[in-house]
């Protein structure tokens, strides 16, 4: 919007940096000691609550052929109604990384939002968690943006959520030293690009660039005359002016692609909501190459009432993640330079509820009293020079709060705020 102003500011900043190269933009004299292992991390929440029985223990066969090695046949009743997808080619992600088969969500209620909050903040929560407000503790995004050297713009951090109910709150905390100024860009693409909203948002007034200066003057005048002492004029994260234009262009491209029918069935396999969310995450990756991206899936939660559909969605989510990995590897700059972490937020109960599906399978809830609902897995894939390949850790090791420090270690910002991490780095996964 104010490109000229941005360029002028950028020029001054560049000049200052050239004149005093030892002073970093953050004001520090020396760079933090943390060294990056990769330049990109994608965290994929295999969320909605999945049980290790059906995933890494393969009780119904290998429902995750793109992720896990092995050809164990899928149970006949589950397979009978499964819309099979093309077999993922190449190596499984398990072969391209380290699998923690006995990961744990150790403490706190086994609710979805509790699981997300724990992973996003690296701290367990309890029943007092405010599901209508932001965390008091900084999120992964804020720590990344603030403690990276140099500090990172919001356009480098994305939270791609399935739902715009509650979950958008996870893009930054209320912590006084962090907060919105270090938050991530959040997007709920399945809503933003649906047919209803596309009709409302895909035809913007073109503002002639020659009018920009005049518009800026009018708005600048208005803003200079409106100041409320003590109140910060901000209601969320703000991108820089240049990044604002970049993101707006990205959104316009998405709407144009949608109009051209490119979103109808882009993978040619019939997509569910999980796969669509991953598809949009891939579009962000291809266009913006974020350094830190978090994307979630939620379809498996159908398991409360339909175990068979749950298994189908485990299968489809797995296929989507493999597709995501292929896109990452096909994206210049991210190829062999990205670590992917796949982890559920919580598990599911060991025993079924009273609801039965068409195959007479019992539904599964996720309650805190059932220890099985705390058993999850974690898969870390990455370049062979960084992540140990084809390694399976089949003892109890790692927990939800370890994900955040592990990402911090990979992206080199752990040393910027070591006291903020309650968990441990998952060093077993690294070369």
């Amino acid at each position, binding site marked *: 919007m104010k490109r000229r102003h941005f360029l002028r500011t950028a020029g001054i900043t560049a000049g200052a940096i050239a004149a005093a190269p030892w002073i970093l933009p953050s004001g520090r004299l020396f760079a933090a000691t943390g060294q990056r292992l990769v330049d990109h991390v994608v965290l994929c929440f295999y969320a909605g609550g999945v049980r290790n029985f059906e995933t890494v223990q393969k009780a119904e066969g290998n429902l995750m052929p793109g992720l896990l090695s092995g050809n164990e046949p899928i149970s006949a009743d589950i397979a009978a109604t499964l819309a099979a997808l093309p077999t993922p080619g190449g190596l499984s992600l398990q072969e391209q990384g380290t699998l923690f088969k006995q990961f744990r969500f150790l403490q706190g209620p086994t609710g979805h939002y509790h699981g997300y909050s724990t992973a996003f903040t690296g701290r367990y929560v309890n029943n007092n968690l405010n599901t209508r407000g932001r965390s008091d503790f900084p999120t992964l995004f804020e720590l990344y943006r603030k403690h990276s050297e140099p500090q990172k713009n919001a356009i480098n951090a994305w939270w791609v959520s399935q739902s715009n109910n509650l979950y958008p709150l996870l893009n930054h905390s209320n912590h006084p030293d962090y907060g919105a100024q270090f938050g991530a*860009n959040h997007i709920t693409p399945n809503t933003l690009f649906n047919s209803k909203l596309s009709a409302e948002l895909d035809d913007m007034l073109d503002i002639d660039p020659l009018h920009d200066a005049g518009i800026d003057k009018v708005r600048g005048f208005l803003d200079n005359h409106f100041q409320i002492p003590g109140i910060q004029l901000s209601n969320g994260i703000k991108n820089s002016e240049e990044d604002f234009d970049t993101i707006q262009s990205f959104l316009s491209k998405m709407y144009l692609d949608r109009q051209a029918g490119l979103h109808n069935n882009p993978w040619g396999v019939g997509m569910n909501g999980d796969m669509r969310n991953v598809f949009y995450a891939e579009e962000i990756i291809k266009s913006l190459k974020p350094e830190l991206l978090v994307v979630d899936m939620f379809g498996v939660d159908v398991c409360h009432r339909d175990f068979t559909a749950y298994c189908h969605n485990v299968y489809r989510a797995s296929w989507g993640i493999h597709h995501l990995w292929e896109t990452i590897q096909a994206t210049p700059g991210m190829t062999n330079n990205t670590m992917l972490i796949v982890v559920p937020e919580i598990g599911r109960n060991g025993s079924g509820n009273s609801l039965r599906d068409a195959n007479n399978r019992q539904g599964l809830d996720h309650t805190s009293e059932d220890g099985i609902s705390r058993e999850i897995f974690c898969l870390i894939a990455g370049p062979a020079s960084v992540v140990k390949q084809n390694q399976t850790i089949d003892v109890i090791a790692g927990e939800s709060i370890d994900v955040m420090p592990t990402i911090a270690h990979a992206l080199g910002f752990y040393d910027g705020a070591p006291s903020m991490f309650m968990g441990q780095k998952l060093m077993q996964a690294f070369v």
Partner: protein
Amino acid sequence: MQLILLFAGLIFSCTKEKQQVNRYVLGDVAAPGYFPGKNNIKSDLQFISIAFTDLYGVQISNAKLSALTDGYNSLGDKQIIIDRILRNLLKDPEIQKPDMATMRGNIPVFVRDCYRRFLVREPNENELWYLRKLIEENQELSPEDIFYSFMTSEEYKYY
């Protein structure tokens, strides 16, 4: 005796009177911006429904409000989504706006109308003078451009 009184009078008359000295210095005085009593940020519903009414002069339908609110909540950077929502509304030929000739024909009336319509207040003389001058000096600016400037201003986010 007269001499004594005379000396006494001289002594007292020459005594320097104690004077109270008032010293005035210039302290720091903050020059506040205009504070029109708006310190509540509009909610997503309020922002969208008010913006719609400001442009169309009628209330937004529930279906449209629901759709746009979904959009508002689906992007973290509210500046970007507000920009997109407003520019989509501003492109609609159905919105109530003067044409270029009407605006340029009586700029003070147009400016005053913008303040009333979007900021729900009267402009002060400085605001009126300055914006009139700006619009006069920037001949390329259209009514949509001015509407867009007002609706993306900080004050427009508050009530």
